[in-house]
Each structure stands twice: as C-alpha cells, then as structure tokens.
C-alpha cells in the first residue's frame, strides 16, 4: 500500500466540516491500520494502509494472532485502568503511545472497540474521530443493516461501510 505522509504545517484542513479535523494539524502523520472488535474479542473489521514491518508475517494465521494480541492487551488493560483510577468513573483507555506508533482506542458501553494505529506525529487523541466513526459510520451502515446480527461472531461484510470508512479516514487532514 502506498505510504501517505502529510507534509508540513501548511496543510490546513480544507474542509472543516469533518469533525475532529483540527485534531491533527502537524508534520508528517500516517495511518497504519484500523480494527473493530466486538465484545467477545472477534475482530469484526480490519483495514491496513501502511504496515512496513509486521512481526507476524511469517506465522500462519498472522492476522488472527495480531488481532488476538491487540484485543488481549486491551482487555487486560481495561481491568487495570479501572482499578488504577484515582477517582470513580473512569472513561477507559484513550491511547497507547510509543515513539513509533500511537494506538487510539474507544470502547462503547456495548463493548464494541474501535482501534486506530497511527504514527506518533499525530498530536493528541483521535478519540473524537473514533466517536464519529461509531456514530455516523458504524451505526448507519452496520447497526442499521438488516443483515447484521450483533449476537453472531461474523465479521462486517458491507462494502458501503468500507467505502464510507475509508473516505472518512483518508479524508482526515492528518493523513492527506
């Protein structure tokens, strides 16, 4: 997949109708990949834009292993985070950041998790973008799709959903 750096601070979002577009106005920023997990840990959706190095590439079921790793980490962290919280009512994990990547996370009360990996040039959390994906893309094209059954473990199979998701993510100013 082609690398998509955004160069320079001059790249103001040309359409501020994209919610959260102002969240990541900075130097080169890249989106790596995106996962949606259901409450049981099944990966309902996975999309990759850039992944120069994949430590699972040699294993069979590499996608599976990778998804299990991410979900397992988030699941364990959830318990940790709520126990560590100094005040009652934690919102849950926002992001996990290293010098190489930032993992943005949103878990809904219904247990659906949205995970977006970007590089670490993105400033701040893209949670509001994940919230937008949830409310305007997931709900509209998945939850409202008569063929979708939240109780089954099926992955999302909706070209319309994919298209809207891709358009939205690729349209975020950080990733132009």
């Amino acid at each position, binding site marked *: 997949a082609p690398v998509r750096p955004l160069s320079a601070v001059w790249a103001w979002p040309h359409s501020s109708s994209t919610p959260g577009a102002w969240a990541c106005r900075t130097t080169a920023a890249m989106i790596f990949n995106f996962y949606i997990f259901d409450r*049981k840990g099944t990966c309902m959706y996975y999309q990759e834009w850039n992944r120069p190095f994949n430590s699972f590439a040699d294993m069979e079921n590499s996608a599976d292993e990778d998804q*299990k790793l991410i979900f397992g980490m988030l699941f364990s962290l959830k318990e940790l985070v709520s126990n560590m919280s100094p005040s009652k009512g934690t919102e849950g994990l926002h992001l996990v950041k290293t010098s190489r990547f930032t993992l943005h996370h949103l878990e809904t*009360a219904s247990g659906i998790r949205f995970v977006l990996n970007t590089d670490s040039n993105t400033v701040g959390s893209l949670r509001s973008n994940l919230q937008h994906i949830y409310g305007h893309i997931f709900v509209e094209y998945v*939850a409202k799709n008569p063929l979708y059954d*939240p*109780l089954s473990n099926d992955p999302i199979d909706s070209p319309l959903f994919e298209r809207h998701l891709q358009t939205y993510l690729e349209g975020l100013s950080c990733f132009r």
Partner: protein
Amino acid sequence: QLEKMGYNIGVRLIDEFLAKGGVNTQCQDHRETADVIAKVAFKMFLGISADVTSWNSAGSQFSLLLYENPLTEFVELPPQYSGLIYSNVLCGAIRGGLEMVGIKVECRFVRDTLRGDEVNEIQVQIVERIEETMGEGYADNS
C-alpha cells in the same frame, strides 16, 4: 413472539442509542440506568417520556410508567385478542438493549391501556450484571 421481536430490535438499537443519545459511559448504578431508559431512550425513539417508580427495597426492580404509547395510538384490541400484550415489543427492546451493555433483566407489562388500565406500566426486574468474557479463540494455550 412480540417480545422476541423486541429483543432483536433492542440488541441493534443499543448502538444507535449510545452513539447518538449522548450517554456513552456505564451508568454508575441501577437508578441511573432506569432514569436513562425513561428519559433519554424513550424520548429518543418514541418521543415520549416515562416515569420511573415503584423501586423495590433491594433496588433491583422498578417500573416504568408510560402515559402515552405511540404504538397504540390508533389501536383497539378486538375481543378475541384480549389476551394479547400488544406492546410487548417494548419489553423485548429494553431487555435486548440492556443485555448488550451487560445488564440482564426481565421485563413485563403489568398494566396496559389497551386492556383497560389508565396507564401503561412495564416492570423491569434486574437479574444480574453479565460478566465480560473473551471468546473461545482466547483460550489459554501458553
């Protein structure tokens, strides 16, 4: 059957509610849950507001009072269907929606304006919190 239909609606409707209802954090206690259902959810999907009453002493059961019911606005029950709980789909929707946020309930209609009562009353019994578990693919194989 109606309850089952309602359940299927509820499990899907919950995501729309969470995304658009402005409530995306876990309710702290059952009272909050009841209030959110009565004031936010009913308003959002049916345009009516319900009252929360009749809490039992353990705090595990409450009633929702609906003074109007848009489902039955133009409906009369003919005599041969006098046993039909016409709006049972509402009970199912509540059960389905709550199950998806980890609360198991039983819901039933105790008073029904279609059958002669002055108000509609849905009794909600909170059974338990559902523990989150990972799916089978995560069985410990270390």
